[in-house]
């Protein structure tokens, strides 16, 4: 394969990068080359400074990556973005990224770069003086009604700014303090306009102009303007050009806007917010009032219920107290005692009755005993008397003079007189003879004499 064919054949990225390195190394012009441009995108690191170079004033043009070893940084030049310089060094391919860059050996400020260095020196001085310090900055009024605009009447930016404010917030009163904004000595005119604006009674000064070249805008980097801003009693908002470039006026101002339309937003920010805030607050106010009323309603309802409930509870408690006492009293109902008493009386009544019965029975018995004993005793007495009589009756019988008649004797009676001797009789006498049983009448027939009888 020929060299040509070899080149045409596909290669790896690493191979390509190596070839490019070789290519740069082979061209002697690239080993010592000077490039003029403006520093941009400066990135200091511990042992080197990386930055890009671009053509002055160019926007979006080509940039060249540069690499400066720390020990090669010059003492008399303060490297910074925007500084116009001439950098000498060697073009090399930076292998890992496969990008070429300039390895700077010498660097020096040039042309506009010198102007820039002047700007840098002033900035440093004013900064040291404290003019850019945050603690110096005043808050912009949130609701500016009077705004002083310091600018040139001819400027396109001012026109846009004024038209926009009047359209959106007619109640914000704008007053233009016309001034030259570029050319030799423009800085003095601007400072004077700021002073006038400051005395006008405005609540806010807006200082600005439309876009222009670095040199056109340079009056806004001048010390006169910075000091006029610092001296102003009124808060200052700057809106210089359309770029993100920072001027010393911006640093000195209380706030700065990158574009006029952003300045409009900034001026109206408070009003816009207020317009959004007020309906919300209106709503919150109504809501808070309603909540207050609701709370009051709730408070009253709660208490209404509490009063009723407390009263009901109190009644219940008192009712319970009555019921308790009613029960206690019922438990001590004297009827139980009365019933016991009734029973006791009934018992005593029975005892009394029984005692009376016993008393009567006792008396009856005593009487009956005596009732029986009396006839017994009287009968005994009669018996005793009877036996006494019987004894005498028998004794009398034992001595009965008629007893011998029973044995056969007889008594002869004449004229009722017992005849004890025959001599007492005469024949013919009538006599009575009594026998044991019965009697007989007889006549004496003869009288007989017993032997021996005289």
């Amino acid at each position, binding site marked *: 394969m020929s060299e040509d064919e070899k080149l045409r054949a596909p290669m790896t990225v690493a191979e390509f990068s190596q070839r490019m390195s070789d290519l740069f190394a082979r061209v002697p012009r690239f080993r010592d080359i000077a490039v003029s441009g403006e520093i941009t995108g400066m990135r200091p690191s511990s042992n080197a400074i990386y930055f890009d170079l671009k053509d002055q004033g160019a926007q979006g043009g080509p940039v060249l990556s540069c690499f400066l070893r720390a020990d090669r940084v010059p003492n008399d030049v303060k490297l910074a973005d925007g500084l116009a310089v001439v950098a000498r060094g060697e073009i090399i391919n930076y292998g890992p990224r496969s990008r070429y860059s300039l390895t700077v050996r010498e660097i020096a400020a040039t042309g506009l770069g010198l102007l820039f260095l002047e700007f840098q020196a002033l900035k440093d001085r004013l900064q040291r003086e404290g003019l850019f310090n945050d603690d110096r900055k005043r808050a912009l009024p949130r609701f500016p009604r009077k705004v002083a605009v310091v600018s040139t009447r001819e400027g396109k930016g001012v026109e846009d700014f004024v038209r926009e404010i009047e359209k959106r917030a007619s109640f914000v009163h704008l007053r233009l303090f016309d001034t030259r904004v570029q050319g030799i000595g423009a800085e003095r005119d601007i400072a004077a306009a700021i002073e006038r604006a400051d005395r006008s009674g405005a609540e806010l000064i807006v200082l600005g102009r439309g876009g222009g070249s670095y040199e056109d805008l340079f009056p806004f980097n001048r010390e006169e303007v910075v000091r006029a801003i610092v001296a102003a009693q009124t808060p200052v908002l700057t809106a210089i050009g359309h770029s993100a470039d920072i001027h010393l006026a911006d640093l000195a101002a209380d706030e700065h806007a990158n574009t006029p339309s952003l300045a409009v937003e900034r001026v109206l920010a408070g009003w816009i917010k207020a317009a959004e805030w007020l309906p919300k607050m209106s709503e919150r106010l109504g809501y808070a009032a309603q909540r207050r009323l609701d709370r009051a309603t709730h408070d009253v309802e709660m208490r209404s219920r509490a009063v009723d409930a407390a009263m009901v509870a109190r009644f219940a408690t008192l009712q319970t107290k009555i019921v308790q006492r009613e029960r206690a009293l019922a438990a001590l109902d004297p009827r139980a005692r009365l019933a016991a008493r009734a029973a006791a009386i009934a018992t005593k009544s029975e005892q009394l009755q029984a005692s009376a019965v016993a008393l009567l029975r006792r008396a009856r018995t005593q009487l009956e005993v005596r009732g029986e004993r009396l*006839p017994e005793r*009287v*009968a005994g007495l*009669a018996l005793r*008397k*009877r036996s*006494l*009589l019987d004894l*005498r*009756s028998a*004794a*009398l019988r*034992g*001595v*009965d*003079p*008629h007893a011998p008649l029973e044995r056969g004797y007889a*008594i002869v009676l004449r004229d009722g*007189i*017992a005849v004890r001797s025959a001599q007492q009789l005469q024949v013919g006498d009538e006599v009575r003879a009594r026998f044991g049983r019965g009697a007989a009448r007889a006549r004496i027939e003869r009288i007989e004499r017993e032997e021996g009888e005289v």
Partner: protein
Amino acid sequence: MSEPGEAFEQKLARIDAIVKELANEQTTLDRGVALFQEGRTLITACEALLKGAQEQVEAATKSASKA
């Protein structure tokens, strides 16, 4: 001789005296018969008294039981 109003016990005592006299040998038949008669009479009187007392008791008993 005993009185009619004489008490039972006095009559008994008279009988006792009669029996005593009758038992005496000296007592004549006439006297004896008279005494004996008196004794008999007394016995009869005593019987009557006894009967009367009994009747009184009965009467008292009856009247009591009636009452």
